[in-house]
């Protein structure tokens, strides 16, 4: 997994609550057996005017000019600013894969769906949680200043806006460390291999049918 320490870049403002993973990456692209290449299909149903299918040349499809990510001002955005309950719905890890492949390594929202939130940390994406009123302020700043950039600093746990406002955010120290180090969970867990084996042998006495 790639490390995440900080990001500075253009902020795209997607002003909608409850954005589900079916919107982030529609079902037809889940047929892929790879982890990469989902970027052109991020928000596919909103982003393009036609119906997309795997294998198409997506660069030739007609873009929906009304969709915010297609606006000139947000090209090259690295940070996605959005609303409550982002990533609700399915457990598809293709959602963070698509966000990352598109270029978003940081999301800022008041809240996230549990599975999506968890999936971000496995892929080097930092989901920043701020209070609703702070997110309101950030939306105001981004919408009123074209080319607005934020700097998100994970070690310092801060979001700094173009006009110098600094917002602190909370993060679980383990998840923070895994992002900073780009650590592989499996390797860490296997350090507890003996404990897992002991658990299994003890447990097999209580619920032997589970281990049949």
């Amino acid at each position, binding site marked *: 997994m790639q490390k995440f320490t900080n990001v500075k870049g253009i902020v795209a403002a997607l002003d*909608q*609550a*409850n954005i*589900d993973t*079916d*919107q982030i990456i*529609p*079902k*037809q692209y*889940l*047929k*892929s*057996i*790879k*982890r990469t290449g989902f970027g052109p299909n991020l928000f596919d*149903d909103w982003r393009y005017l036609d*119906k997309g299918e*795997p*294998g198409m040349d997506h660069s030739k499809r007609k873009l929906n000019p009304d969709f915010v990510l297609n606006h000139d001002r947000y090209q090259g955005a690295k940070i996605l600013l959005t*609303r*409550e*309950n982002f990533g*609700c*719905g*399915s*457990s*598809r*890890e293709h959602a*963070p894969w698509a966000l990352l492949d598109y270029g978003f390594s940081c999301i800022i929202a008041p*809240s996230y*769906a*549990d*599975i999506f939130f*968890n*999936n971000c940390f*496995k*892929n080097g994406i930092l989901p920043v949680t701020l209070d609703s009123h702070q997110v309101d302020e950030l939306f105001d700043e981004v919408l009123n200043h074209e080319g607005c950039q934020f700097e998100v600093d994970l070690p310092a746990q801060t979001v700094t806006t173009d006009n110098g406002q600094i917002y602190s955010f909370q993060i*679980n*120290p*383990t998840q923070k460390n895994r992002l900073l180090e780009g650590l*592989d*969970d*499996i390797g860490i*867990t*296997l350090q*507890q*291999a003996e*404990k*897992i084996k002991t*658990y*299994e042998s003890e*447990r097999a006495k*209580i*619920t*032997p*049918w*589970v*281990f*049949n």
Partner: protein
Amino acid sequence: MRYYFKSKFTNTAIMAKTLYDKLWDAHLVHEYDDGTSLLYIDRQLVHEVTSPQAFEGLKLAGRKLWRVNANLAVADHNVPTTDRRLGIADPVSKLQVTTLTENCESAGITLFGMNDIRQGIVHVIGPEQGSTLPGMTIVCGDSHTSTHGALGALAFGIGTSDVEHVLATQCILQKKAKNMRVTVNGQLQPGVTAKDIILAIIGKIGTAGGTGYTIEYAGEVIESLSMEARMTICNMSIEAGARAGLVAVDQTTIDYVKDRPYSPNDEMWQQAVEYWQSLKSDDKAEFDIEIELDANQIKPYLSWGTSPEMVMPIDATVPDPELENDPVKREGMQRALEYMDLKPGMRAEDIQPDKVFIGSCTNARIEDLRAAADVVKGKKLAANIKLAMVVPGSGLVKQQAEQEGLDEIFKSTGFEWREPGCSMCLGMNEDQLEPGERCASTSNRNFEGRQGRGGRTHLVSPVIAAAAAVTGHFVDVNSVG
């Protein structure tokens, strides 16, 4: 509905445990300093969509499976529901299903192939086979894994990285969730089903209401429900934001589990039953939130919008966003109404679907098919219904239904009788809505484009879907003669 927020840290809270606490404690392998835990996983269900990258990851790292027998695999999302002898026409889908087969063969994982009678939707076949059992921890790369909580098991959906993690370590890293209990007391009215109970709950607490919680469903109504109805409720816990839903083990649970292919056999059966009987919340256990619903007040529901919290009783009218004070919610409602092509004040009964889908891990078990068949028996599809289909949850559900003659009832009404799979719940195969088409669907998500780009989904129970098929509009099943 009433909410109670209880204070923790009383003496009784320390002594008494919720069912979730018990399941958690029994599977705790290691606790890290920050409160993150390593939780042992008894069973992993594997399907074709969220597993290929996990197997690839293991291969690249040269890692082996920790416990091969802990896994059971099936292809369900991509499979065609029409004639299986023709194979999978879409080469991309075909590659994914073939990849699952190859991965399972090389790892030694039991796989129910597309032409195996036991094949079906992963959350239908787990309980059906006795592969998912009370007291287990169960994961799958699918958010509707919450279904298995109906058995008194801790079951939740995970992403592909976690699928790989469980394959390699048989454990998952997690922080413990909080406890929520939803108690449903009273008497259900005729025509009101488990689907209406869970839609009513989601309508009340919202799609993020359960975020960070495990929900235990309790009360006399839940206790009186069949296992299949309990699965319908637990299935949609994730639509309320909760990764896991639970129902305490009782005699209904034990009777359901008995004599299933993977259930414990003679000598171990008694030991298992004794253990399972402990799987309920202690009387004095305290929950972080308690919610109570009066079953007498629950009506048949349908969703009107593009989020499962956007629901209304069948005798109600489409709500008016202008009456919503929260600007973010108001905008969401307006957007949903536009997408759904509905106007505030419209009666539910005036909404006419084009298609009817009876299926999915929410509502494709034998009881669902029986209830729907009972409504359509001797009737014909309404003229405006372009397609009505029944997709049984598994090959065994299909076989059972055929033995009972349900297939003939559906077919003579004008329904198509299909092969098992996820089908039009998410439209990964050919079963999709066309842009603008409206569907009465027994599935679990009404997101934009979920059943096909531009398609409009109304979530309903099997009996309401059946009633819509024969009347051509949404209507209380009690008024269908």
